[in-house]
């Protein structure tokens, strides 16, 4: 069964924030808000719990660090030891630059992919664009139309009263 969403499209972020606050007050669940750029403080109005993304970064970075050190140890001590300027095979100082780079690489890439997956911005993970305007210059509040108790007309009116330039139903 397709889900139905009621979309309120705003030109101005402040209008959108006011509308979101009002919806919160009359106890309407906001499915999500789509904006062309990060709007500060929005996560507070929506009462979204703090992001767990830093944990992902930490684990990814630590994994990268460990992997880089182990790999270099395996290459230069176990698999193919080469005498470089009489230095010991297991020269920790020489491993650090590569370990640093791999840490950053793992941390950065895995964070970005985890973010895209969790926020459903990759098409194959259930993406799809709710409203094309949100990719450009509009701010879109999406409300899930669940059952008959959801009064589409009166809520549309509320959205309009707060300055929504367009109110529409989207089936996704």
């Amino acid at each position, binding site marked *: 069964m397709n889900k139905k969403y009621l979309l309120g499209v705003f030109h101005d972020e402040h209008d959108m924030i006011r509308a979101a606050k009002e919806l919160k007050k009359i106890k309407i669940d906001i499915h999500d808000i789509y904006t062309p750029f990060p709007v*500060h*403080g929005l996560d507070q109005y929506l009462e979204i719990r*703090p992001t767990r993304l*830093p944990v992902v970064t*930490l684990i990814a970075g630590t994994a990268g660090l460990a992997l880089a050190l182990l790999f270099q140890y395996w290459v230069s001590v176990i698999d193919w030891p080469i005498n470089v*300027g009489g*230095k010991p095979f297991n020269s920790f*100082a*020489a491993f*650090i*630059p590569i370990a640093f780079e791999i840490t950053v690489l793992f941390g950065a890439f895995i964070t970005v992919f985890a973010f895209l997956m969790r926020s459903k911005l990759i098409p194959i993970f259930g993406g799809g664009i709710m409203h094309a305007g949100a990719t450009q210059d509009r701010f879109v509040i999406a409300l899930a139309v669940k059952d008959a108790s959801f009064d589409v007309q009166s809520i549309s009116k509320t959205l309009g009263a707060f300055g929504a330039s367009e109110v529409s139903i989207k089936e996704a």
Partner: protein
Amino acid sequence: MTIYKDNCKLNKIFILLMCFGIVGIAGAFYFLPIKVWINILTANFMVLSIGLFGFFMLAVTNIVGAAFVAPYRKVLEAMAGTVPYLGLSMLVILLGSHSLYEWTHADVVMNDKILMEKASYLNLPFFSIRMVICIGLWSLMSFVLVRKFREQENFPERAERIQESLSGLSAAFMIIFALTYSMASFDWIMSLEPHWYSTIFGVFTFSGLVVSGLATLILVLIHLQHHGYLKNMNLNHYHDLGKLLLGFTTFWAYIWFSQYLLIWYANIPEEGEYYVLREHFGWSWLFWINIVLNWVIPFLVLLPRWTKRSKTVLQRTCLIILLGQWLNLYVMIAPKVMEHHGVMDPTITWIELFIGLGYTGLFLFIFFKRLSQSSLVATNSPFLEEGLALEQ
């Protein structure tokens, strides 16, 4: 409260700290005279760098038009205002130049081919001239910046135009500062080991300047807020400073390692002696603690978001960092001078503590005097509103 009232009780504490410093210097003269000059150079260079951080931060934020410092810009001005005084007290090391610098001994230079070739640069008259020029330029530049800001406060109609002219002026100042600070580090610290050289040395001392300056700034801001000043600063401002601190402690570690790796890898005797001396002969424990205090602890502590938003955690981390930065300079300065004098004393005693406290007192005394001389609010700054409304 927009004006900082000079606090008599605090001033007494600072004067007491300075007395500790004098006792420390007297004690060092009695027990181990070479420690006097080592400690004066270490402590004075450190507080002078912290003062210069005020100047640096003002200049950099002027160039890029950054608003986030506007709420505490006057604190940075007071830091920059200490530069002339601490620069003047730095001149004291000229008296101890014979004890500190091997190249001031004519008989040593005569018998050393490398020092002979460097003699046209490393000689006492030229050294003194360079020192006076560096300190003079820093004092002048800090003075001009603070004066321009004062003008902005007094003439609101010209505020925007002054801000614009400041960005050009600061860019020129920044170039002069980069060259002179690098030269001063080469002269005052690197020439303690006249055979050794490291081209990244100026960048390394600069990274220490930013780290110790940021730590001091955060501590001072927490102190002022605790006493009811700067009420409109919020946790977002501390969060930003915490992020900078995390970034710059890592920058410090990066530069430390850049210098170490190249010297270790090339393995040339005259470069390597610097680390051979510090990794052996009893110095190794201070050498490694230095990295723990300056990078391992701050990095792990400041990584999560909440620690940068907690004044208690920030305060403790900053104290550890300041201790670490002092040790960093001490490990740069002390080993070679001691070896040169035939003593090896890799311990931190009450002499180091007292002289360190003395210079802390001197810095804070001048700093708070400068802070009380004008309002704490950067009136008419075009960035003030934006800086106060900082959001995360």
